[in-house]
């Protein structure tokens, strides 16, 4: 370990660089390479195990050619059969039996002026009569209710009796 000597004329920055150089030149711990190499090998093995990919065309031999073609034929058969099944089950939309032309108004005829839809008119507010008027109207009604109804009914029956019958035919 270097000891800082105050008697020497080295300036401060050099002293700082000496310290950094001392740290930078520290020897690596023993067995570092071996540990790193072991770690790398372990990582390589684990990654190979995790991401194994079959080298399919490369590993297959000539004797298994018929098996490959049979598998390919089976795949083609399944795909084609499935497609045909779906096609045969789905009903095709029927063509229109007649063609309906849009209505075109004749010259001189009323049109809707291009309006596609006329909105409904909103109903206006309901006016409520003032309470004083109601009260004034209510008084004669009560008086009328107090009077006996017999004379009026008698008059109406009498009128009905006087009126001659009108023939229905014009």
């Amino acid at each position, binding site marked *: *370990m*270097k*000891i*800082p000597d105050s008697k020497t004329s080295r*300036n*401060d*920055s050099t*002293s*700082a*660089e000496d*310290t*950094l*150089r*001392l*740290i*930078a*030149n*520290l*020897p*690596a*711990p023993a067995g*570092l*390479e071996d*540990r*790193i*190499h072991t*770690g*790398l090998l372990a*990582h*390589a093995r684990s990654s190979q195990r995790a991401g194994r990919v079959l*080298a399919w065309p*490369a*590993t297959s*031999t000539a004797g298994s050619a018929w098996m490959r073609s049979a598998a390919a034929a089976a795949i083609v058969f399944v795909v084609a059969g499935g497609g045909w099944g779906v096609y045969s089950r789905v009903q095709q939309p029927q063509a229109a039996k007649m063609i309906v032309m849009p209505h075109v108004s004749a010259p001189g005829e009323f049109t809707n002026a291009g309006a596609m839809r006329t909105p409904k008119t909103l109903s206006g507010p309901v006016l409520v009569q003032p309470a004083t008027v109601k009260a004034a109207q209510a008084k004669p009604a009560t008086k009328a209710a107090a009077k006996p109804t017999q004379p009026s009914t008698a008059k109406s029956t009498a009128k009905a009796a006087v009126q001659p019958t009108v023939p229905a035919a014009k």
Partner: protein
Amino acid sequence: MEIPESTLLNKSRQHADEETLAALVSQYAGTLYRVAFSVLRNAADAEDAVQEAFLRVLRHRDTLGEVRDQRVWLIRIVWNIVLDRKRRAKTRPETDDVAELARVLQSDGLSAEQIASAAQHHAHVLAQVERLPAKEREVLMLSAFEELNSVEIAEVLGITESSVRSRLFRARNLMADLLQHTRS
């Protein structure tokens, strides 16, 4: 059973990659460890960083042939890893502790008092280095490695050589100011 040629090629290529990687590990593991330790100042963290650097090399082994200077390339990888780790951890370096620094820096034929005094001085200097701006600090730390010249430092940091020189000049001045200020 016939083994296809492509399988043999793959195996031979994989074997060659492994051999190249093993050679890189045995050649540069020590250098990378020292670079990592200079930033992290923790033995276990530095070793982890070196391991991670070689794992990255393993992942990108296909590009190994394109690398011009493998040493600088590896130092750059480990440098980025340690800076990232330091940024994420934001922990105080272990060797800020004087006792720990005395343990790490081996001493020969010194008394306990001298060792303690030296460790204290180094701890103080390292604390001041941490106060430097990041750009200047990085250049100063890399310049401490004898195996790196200014061109290689520029390659590691991804800057020009003139920038390295100007930053180093600034770092030295700032360091002198900091140490003078703390002494006064």
